[in-house]
């Protein structure tokens, strides 16, 4: 506890172990076993549907996933025994389901297999999870690296500008055959930075200036940071043509700013800036403009005789799924073509598992986010609270932006569905997020006397 920074003066005093909370590690183990079994079942269902036999690698696949999950579980049991028992199983289940879907789509593209690489990346992700849980004994250590985090994040964000654009977006770097999206790692670093920065400066930011109607606008002096973040977001958007990521950063910052200061004025300012940026970019950037046109008229290309575009194909896939889905391995979501395993992975889930399936997936994400918020609520010190809320919001916003995009709710922006989508950087990052949430929830519940926190 003494490692805590100056802002953590309210850290809990050590409490005697009189009425400690139950650790619930057994529940976690049972849920992990369930998650692994569900994934293996999905894997087998694909094989049965496609070839009428169990896929040859079913046992190995199940064993691999099981061992990974068990190692992660052991790490939690060892170093974060009070952690929320739902976080890890949700991560395992989503990752397992993602692997099943990617394996299933690989059957349609025999020349381009993504599942083995994704399995390797998942292993790396779990390894990172274990490392974080083992080595990061207290999340407050991260507060020391506030500015290291932001510099690293900005470097990671700007790095891909030096590399050639891939499919209209400069978000990849290619090294030795591997594509890495540094922006994914930058997300976690930025959350850490936001949390630390806001935890340190929340009082100053909470000063209010003029009052317009019911909104208390912040004073001009503290507008600096939000404008800076806005500029970075717009910069990301223009330089990398990555609408989703810039939306995500900005939304995240506004949410954290509101949570930290409790001033609705920040939301007003945020929305204003976002609207300004959106209108300007929508007008100026043809890339973004066409996305909005496609969103408004997804079937215009069909009527023009040019065939269905990706969004239309995605909508067709969801529609084909209906309530209960076509069954794993029995859909035709490969018609979406490019990015079917990454950005559009949810369409495969929607077609083959139906509304029931993606409803379940959404609820899993919802549960993950909810556990994150709970961890934040249970925390006593602001950095931990903001970190947990920030990470949970990151997942929530990301899911909303991409899932809303592929289902036609909002304009489509390229972004990885957490855990499900193909993409190594994304999987590794998501495991890091879960690891940090495990760490925060462990520290929250460890320090509890069992009365005011759940």
């Amino acid at each position, binding site marked *: 506890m003494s490692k805590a920074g100056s802002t953590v003066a309210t850290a809990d005093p050590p409490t005697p172990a009189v009425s400690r909370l139950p650790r619930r590690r057994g529940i976690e183990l049972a849920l992990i076993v369930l998650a692994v079994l569900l994934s293996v079942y999905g894997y087998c269902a694909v094989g049965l549907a496609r070839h009428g036999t169990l896929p040859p690698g079913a046992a190995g696949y199940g064993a691999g996933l099981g061992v990974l999950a068990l190692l992660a579980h052991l790490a939690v049991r060892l170093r974060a025994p009070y952690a929320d028992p739902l976080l890890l199983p949700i991560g395992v289940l989503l990752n397992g389901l993602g692997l099943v879907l990617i394996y299933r789509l690989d059957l349609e593209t025999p020349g381009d297999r993504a599942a083995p690489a994704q399995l390797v990346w998942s292993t790396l992700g779990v390894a990172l999870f274990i490392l974080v849980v083992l080595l990061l004994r207290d999340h407050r250590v991260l507060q020391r690296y506030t500015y290291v985090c932001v510099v690293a994040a900005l470097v990671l964000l700007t790095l891909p500008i030096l590399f050639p654009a891939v499919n209209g977006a400069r978000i990849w770097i290619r090294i030795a055959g591997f594509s890495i999206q540094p922006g994914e790692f930058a997300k976690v670093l930025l959350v850490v930075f936001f949390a630390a920065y806001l935890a340190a400066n929340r009082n100053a930011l909470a000063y209010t200036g003029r009052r317009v109607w019911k909104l208390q606008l912040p004073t001009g002096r503290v507008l600096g940071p939000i404008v800076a973040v806005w500029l970075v977001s717009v910069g990301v958007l223009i330089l990398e043509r990555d609408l989703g990521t810039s939306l995500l950063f900005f939304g995240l910052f506004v949410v954290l700013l509101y949570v930290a200061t409790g001033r609705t004025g920040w939301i007003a300012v945020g929305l204003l800036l976002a609207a300004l940026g959106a209108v300007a970019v929508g007008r100026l950037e043809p890339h973004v403009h066409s996305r909005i046109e496609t969103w408004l008229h997804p079937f215009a290309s069909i009527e023009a005789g040019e065939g269905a575009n990706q969004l239309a194909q995605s909508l067709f896939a969801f529609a084909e799924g209906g309530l209960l889905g076509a069954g794993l391995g029995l859909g035709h979501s490969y*018609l979406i073509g490019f990015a079917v395993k990454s950005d559009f992975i949810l369409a495969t889930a929607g077609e083959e598992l139906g509304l029931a399936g993606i409803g379940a997936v*959404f609820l899993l994400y919802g549960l993950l986010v909810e556990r994150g918020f709970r961890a934040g609520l249970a925390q006593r010190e602001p950095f931990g609270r903001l970190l947990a809320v920030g990470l949970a919001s990151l997942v929530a916003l990301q899911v909303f932006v991409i899932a809303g995009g592929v289902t036609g*709710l909002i304009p489509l922006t390229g972004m990885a569905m957490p855990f499900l989508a193909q993409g190594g950087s994304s999987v590794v990052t998501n495991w890091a997020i879960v690891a940090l949430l495990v760490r925060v929830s462990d520290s929250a519940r460890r320090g509890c006397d069992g009365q005011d926190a759940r």
Partner: protein
Amino acid sequence: MTRHIRHAGYFCVLLLVALLLNAARVQVVQAPSYDRNPGNRRPDITRYEQPRGDILVGGRRVTGSRDTREHLRYERTYTDGPLYAPVTGFASQLYGTTLLESTEDGVLSGADPMLAPFPLWNDFTRARNAGGDVVTTLHPAAQEAAFKGLAGRKGAVAALEPSTGRILALVSAPSYDPQPLSGNGSAAARAWARLNADKDRPMLNRAVRQTYPPGSTFKVVTAAAALDTGVVTDLEAPTDSPDPYRLPGTRTRLTNASKGCADASLREAFTLSCNTVFAKLGVEVGVPDMTATAYALGFGNGGLRIPFPVARSTFDTTLDKAQLALSSIGQYNTRATPLQMAMVAAAVANGGQVRDPYLVERTTRPGGGTLAAAGSRAVRQAMYPSTAVRLRAMMRDVVENGGGRNAAIRGAKVGGKTGTAQHGLGNSGTPYAWFVSWAQGDRDLAARVAVAVVVEDAEARRGDISGGGDAAPIARAVMRAVLKSP
């Protein structure tokens, strides 16, 4: 801060609810319209994902499926494409389906809910049944005989089993191979363009979709009406008809191709195919009774399905006497499909009873179990049985002593009627050669086959065209093929 975290949490709940509602909108509310969107290829992919059921002729499959390993996986193949094209039609991934491929598509493609093991089962499991088979009534030897007989000359043959209405042969020439149309590549598009540009119109099913003036073969109908109404009571009695015959109310004089028609008896007039006698008889019968007999035999019926639709054969009901006279010898507005004329011959052979023709014996499940069988068809008594007996005798006279000698078969009773139909402006077109007939083996209880043959034969010189010369040998070959089989 706790309160604001909760607010942020509510915001996330809002996002979640929005996602769920929108997913329900796309997957449930909008799903039917998305499924029907022309840009959605799923219906096609599902349809061609499995081999199509087959069409069977005489216990043998005349269709097949080829696995192309493309997105639209299975393509239709045909073992004897041109021979059976007027029955099977084509099943194209680009141009849809026709004829049996179209009317039996539900069974063949597996979409028919009757193929499911239980009602609503497939709606729940989303399984698609394997395609069922369609067993036709065709007689392969008769079909081949008709196809060979036409030998590519423009024309058509329809053959029926008179007692049931089963269609034994249905040939249209020139024919085409439907297989090149099956796929979805540029080859299919080229074949489609070529077939549609062909001035001989090979994709026209002349046996059921084309009507011709029936000419003298229509005299069977006129004779039936005359006997039924009592205009003629004695076949051997003179009919008191002049030669030439002046069409009532006009100065036009109708003549005959053969001599001996003046005042001929009905039997003689039928054998000699006297236009004058039948024109006069038609006028004496009158429009209502002529119409009644023609309609009872199937004329005027636009709704006949075998199961694909048959063009309406026409007998005009708003006629003055001169028009009636011409209509009664199968000219003016009288037009018939070859199938219709086969029905006329079948009615005579079957004691005056008409049964609607049909082509599908039964449909079967993939395992062979019967899905649906052709029940017995409704019967219409188109003429008195006594009339039918007398017409049978007259038609046998044609084959034994008249213009139908080319249709005679040893060891069988054969009745027929020739026809040479004028058409075109001022009868300038190459006439159509007709022959309608029926045959009953000496040991058979009832007539086994009734045939109608029409040969357009634009190639031949005008004088050579006659029902007895061009069409009768084809009819004979078809009837022999049927009689030879046990």
